[in-house]
């Protein structure tokens, strides 16, 4: 198996304070991986570096053979990576299907694609593709509704569908299960398993260790911006360094 994402010696500091310190890891093609660690460990910062919201101070990020370290954030989606957000970042005044169609944006390159009235003429490939994706995720009943009015769990899943529309090789999910109840969590897990089965690599930041154990095989643990462990989901609870890192917080999280 080859790596779809490689981080080598990535470093980021804010005002002289290193938040990400020499972090390296590989994510295998088609795998389901998790990035975990106590609060403030730098997990979301890694995501923000990957999606280009922050620039790295050092190191390299290789996505599917392409060095994306210096590529502007707007273009990174073209190389096969998209993401969801820790706090829902759907467009509140757009309908569900419009939000999902935003996920297709970088695929619409021609003049005709940009100026085709996708809203007026419902029988066009963009809208139909978006509705099909919503229907696959069991969300088709919501497609015409404005998202700000929808339940939290539904919005979380819409975010995943939107991220999937760009046809990513690597899907970054920032705390997808946070704030969901048990039923919503299992719906989300079903959706993610479906996504993974279709060949998309998942990289998840998550606090809910049960969710991680159920979904992922491979775990990277960060603490204070450093990688302290990398291995399988089964090994992580036995690693003394990981236990140590979590002891300050809640050891039962990992154990």
């Amino acid at each position: 198996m080859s790596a779809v994402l490689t981080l080598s010696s990535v470093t980021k500091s804010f005002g002289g304070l290193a938040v990400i310190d020499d972090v390296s890891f590989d994510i295998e093609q088609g795998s389901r991986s998790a990035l975990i660690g106590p609060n403030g460990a730098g997990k979301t910062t890694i995501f923000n570096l990957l999606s280009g919201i922050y620039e790295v101070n050092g190191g390299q990020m290789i996505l599917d053979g392409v060095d994306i370290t210096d590529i502007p954030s707007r273009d990174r989606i073209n190389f096969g990576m998209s993401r969801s957000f820790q706090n829902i970042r759907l467009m509140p005044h757009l309908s569900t299907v419009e939000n999902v169609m935003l996920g297709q944006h970088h695929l619409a390159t021609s003049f005709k694609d940009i100026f085709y009235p996708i809203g007026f003429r419902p029988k066009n490939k963009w809208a139909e593709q978006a509705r099909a994706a919503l229907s696959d995720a069991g969300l088709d009943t919501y497609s015409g509704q404005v998202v700000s009015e929808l339940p939290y769990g539904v919005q979380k899943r819409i975010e995943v569908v939107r991220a999937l529309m760009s046809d990513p090789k690597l899907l970054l999910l920032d705390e997808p299960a946070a704030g969901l109840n048990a039923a919503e969590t299992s719906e989300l897990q079903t959706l993610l398993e479906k996504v993974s089965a279709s060949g998309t690599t998942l990289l998840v930041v998550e606090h809910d260790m049960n969710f991680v154990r159920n979904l992922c095989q491979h775990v990277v643990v960060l603490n204070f911006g450093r990688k302290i462990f990398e291995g399988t989901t089964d090994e992580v609870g036995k690693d003394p360094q990981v236990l140590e890192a979590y002891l300050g917080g809640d050891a039962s999280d990992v154990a």
Partner: protein
Amino acid sequence: MSAYLTGLIVILCLNIIIAYSVFLPAAAGQLNLGAAGFMIIGAYMDAYLNSADDGLGLPMLLSVPAAALFTALIGFLVSFPILRTRGVYMILATFAFAEIVAGIVLNMEVVGGASGFPVSSHAELEDLLPVTIGVVLFGFYLISTRFGLAMRSIHDDESVAILFGVNARHIQVGAFTIGAFLGGLAGALYGHQFDYIEVQNWGILFSIFVLLYVLIGGTQTPWGPLIGALFFTFVPELLRAVGDATGWELIGELRFAVFGAIIVGMMVLRPEGIMTRTFLELLFRKVPQRSPQNPPNNMEGV
């Protein structure tokens, strides 16, 4: 139709066009307090091209589109510096732009300077009406495209839109430039309706009112500027009529003050404008379709 009503509809049409001019950048999250600037450029350019004595003597059919295109070009050029600014700075920068335009035209003797400039050809309401309808349809069309989707995404969350590959700068420049085109169009048409143009007609109050049309109407849907312009054109007249009918003259005399109070009240009751996405959904939603067996090609509200 009475002359009063015709005059009112002429004003309504011009208000609608200039409202769409400010709406387009506003739908992409950019507040423009410089509507007067575009209006002045369009009106004077058109009057100059159209004038047989002092200008080129082009027919209206050529001079109006040419003036609108010229305004669009100016809008395109100034959009680069202006779109570098944000928030309050953007409001102030567009306002400064309008004041500079007014100041320059005021000192251009070739178009009459402070004493105004006569417009040769006269157009009737019958000429204005189809253009206005065209502008409204264009507004609806543009919002329904992927370009419009990108505009509204930038309005809601610019940084996320960028992560999904939206070139925010291009979209904003595009929206601002098309807005400038419509502003120039409104200015040119104004001249042909009233036969005389003066810079003094388009001061800060004009720009404020146009921005209010858009914000009161709502920036989320293309209905917003239409409803805003209708509201701003008819409510003061309605108040006057009520004053006349009841014999309570104070209402008529105070109609603009009452109108100001309505604006304040509107912000309390409908802070996102009269027409919002959720309100639209409420109006046009068919019988609630909640069953999961729904065919996926249901097309409501797309």
